C-alpha cells in the first residue's frame, strides 16, 4: 500500500482540486482530508457520512468560582496568558493549552480540567471510494492530533478494504498539521503556482520533505499566468533533483467544476483536466511502480 500527500505551502494553489481529480482517476484507494481546520474536499466529493464521531483531545481548565480565593497563583504560573484575575480567576479557553499546571498548583483545588471536545470526524462513502474527514471546531487546537487520527483511521480502512493507495489532502503551511500528515507517507505531491510566493513556499515544503526524508514531486498549476516563473520553478526543482511531473494551464473550468461540486476531470476534456490526467498517470507510475 502506498500513501501520497498533496501539499503546497502556499494556500490556494489547487491542492484540493488536484486531490478531487485524483479521487476520480485512481482506483482502489481510500481518501483522507487532513486539512482539518478548513476542510474542503467534501465540497467536491459529496460524501454520505457512514460514521460520525466526536473528537476529544487534551483538556481545558475551568474555575469553580465557589472555591476560588482569587489568590492569583494560577495567573502567575500560566505560560499562555490564559488566566486573568477579575475578582476570581477567569480562564480564556481559546488561549488555554491544557497543560494543567494551574490545576496542579491551585491551593484551593478550584480548577477543574475538562476533557476537550474539539471536533468531529467522519467516515463517509463517496462515488470514488471511502473518505475519512474531520472538522476541527472554530478556533480549536490539536489540529495535529486530529490529522494523525484521520490518517490512522484511513490506513485502518485501507487495510480492511485491501486498498492499494491512500490519497491525502494536506493543509497549507509547513507547521503542525502538515508535519502530522507526513507520518508513514511514501510521497508528497507539491502543487505550486508560478509566482514568487508560490516558489518561496514550495521551497519550504521541499525543505520539509528533505527534513523528513520523503520523496517529493511537483506540479506547476496555472503555469501560463507567468511562463518565465514556471521555468524558474522547474530550474529550482532540477537543482534539487525533484521531478516536475507537469504543468497545468489556467482554466476557468476549475472554478466551474467547484461551483458544480464535482471533480474537475469528471466528464471534462478541457486543458486543465487533460494536464492533470497526465500528471496523475506519471505520479502513479513513479510511486506505485510497476
Amino acid at each position, binding site marked *: 500500500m502506498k500513501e501520497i500527500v498533496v501539499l*503546497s*505551502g*502556499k*494556500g*490556494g*494553489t489547487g491542492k484540493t482540486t488536484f486531490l478531487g481529480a485524483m479521487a476520480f482517476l485512481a482506483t482502489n484507494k481510500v481518501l483522507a482530508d487532513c486539512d482539518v*481546520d*478548513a476542510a*474542503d474536499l467534501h*465540497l467536491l466529493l459529496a460524501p454520505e457520512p457512514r460514521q460520525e464521531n466526536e473528537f476529544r483531545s*487534551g*483538556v481545558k481548565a475551568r474555575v469553580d468560582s465557589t472555591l476560588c480565593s482569587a489568590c492569583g497563583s494560577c495567573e502567575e*504560573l500560566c*505560560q*499562555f496568558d490564559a488566566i486573568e484575575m477579575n475578582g476570581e480567576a477567569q480562564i480564556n479557553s*481559546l*488561549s488555554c*493549552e*491544557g*497543560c*494543567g*499546571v494551574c490545576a*496542579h498548583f491551585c491551593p484551593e483545588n478550584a480548577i477543574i480540567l475538562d476533557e476537550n471536545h474539539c471536533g468531529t470526524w467522519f467516515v463517509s462513502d463517496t462515488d470514488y471510494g471511502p473518505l475519512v474527514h474531520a472538522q*476541527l471546531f*472554530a*478556533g*480549536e*487546537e490539536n*489540529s495535529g492530533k486530529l490529522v494523525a487520527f484521520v490518517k490512522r483511521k484511513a490506513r485502518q480502512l485501507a487495510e480492511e478494504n485491501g486498498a492499494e493507495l491512500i490519497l491525502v489532502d494536506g*493543509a*497549507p*503551511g*509547513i*507547521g*503542525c*498539521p*502538515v*508535519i*502530522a500528515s507526513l507520518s508513514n507517507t511514501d510521497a508528497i505531491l507539491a502543487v505550486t*503556482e*508560478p*509566482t*514568487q*510566493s508560490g516558489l*518561496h*513556499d514550495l521551497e*519550504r515544503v521541499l*525543505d*520539509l520533505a528533505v*527534513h*523528513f526524508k520523503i520523496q517529493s514531486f511537483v506540479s506547476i498549476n*496555472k503555469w501560463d*499566468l*507567468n511562463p518565465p*516563473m514556471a521555468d524558474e520553478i522547474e530550474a529550482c526543482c532540477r537543482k534539487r533533483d525533484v521531478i516536475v511531473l507537469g504543468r497545468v494551464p489556467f482554466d*476557468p473550468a476549475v*472554478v466551474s467544476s*467547484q*461551483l458544480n*461540486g464535482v471533480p474537475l476531470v469528471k466528464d471534462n476534456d478541457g486543458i486543465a483536466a487533460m494536464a492533470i490526467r497526465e500528471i496523475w498517470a506519471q505520479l502513479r507510475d513513479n510511486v506505485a511502480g510497476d
Partner: protein
Amino acid sequence: MRITVASGKGGTGKTIVSTSLALCASASGRTQFLDCDVEEPNGHIFLAPDLSLSERCVVTIPRIIEGKCTYCGKCRDICRFNAITIFGQTIMSFNELCHSCLGCFLVCEENAIARDEREIGVVETGLAGSIDFVHGRTRVGEAMSVPLIKAVKKKARQDVLVIIDAPPGTSCPFVETVSDADYVLLVTEPTPFGLHDLQLAVAVLQKLNIPGGVIINRADLGDDRVEKWCAGVGIPVVLKIPFERGIAEGYARGENLIQSQPNLRQPLENLLKELVR
C-alpha cells in the same frame, strides 16, 4: 489601531491586500506591517524590506540532570504532552512534544531539571520604504508556531497604524494572530471553498467578539453565494476586487495591487479612512 487581514482559506489574496493596504497607509502616516504567517511568510516579497535585524525565537525546554534525578516520576506525571518518559533508571525528554508550560520545573524537588532552549524560528525586522516591517519565519520541521507569532506581535507599536497579515486556517495560529485586532478584514473568493472557509473564520471572530468585514477577491470568478451569505448574517462586504489577468501577472512578479492596478488605490484608501475613523 490594529487591522488584521485574514482568510480561512489560503491563497485568496490576504498578502497582496495587506501589503497594498500598508503601502496606502504609509503615504499618509507612519505604518507598521507584521507578517504573522510564520510558516510561509510572503509579505517581504511585496514590500521588499531591508531586513536589518534578526532575532532568534526560542522556547524553554527541560534538560534533565541525570546525576540529580531520583526517577520519582513527578515531572512525567504532570506533563500532559507526554514529553517525559521514564524506564527504570532512564529518563528521557522529547523536546518536540514540549509546550513549555514549565510544569516539570515546578514539580521537581531535586533541582534535577535545568532550563534549555529550542529555537523555533527567527523574528526579522527592517524598513520597507517608510513602513516598519516585521516578520517571523519558523525553522523548517518545527511544528510549533504560536510562540513565534506572539514574538512577532510583541513588536507591534502602540502609536501607529499596524497592519497584520494572518496565517490561513482557523486553528491556533489564526486565533493567536487575530486575538487583539481592532478590526479583521477577511479576504475570500466567491466559490464554495471560499464561502465554506469564510464561514469558519467568521465563527472564530464571533467567538472572540472582534468586528470584521469581507473583501471578495476575483469577484467575477464564481457566483454570488458569498455576497448572499454575508448579507444574510449581516457582515459587510467592504471591497470587491475583480479578476484581472494584470493583477495575477503582477502578483506573480511580486507586485502589489497599487503597482499592477493603480485604480485600486482610491478604494483601498477609502477603506482605510473608513476603518481608522
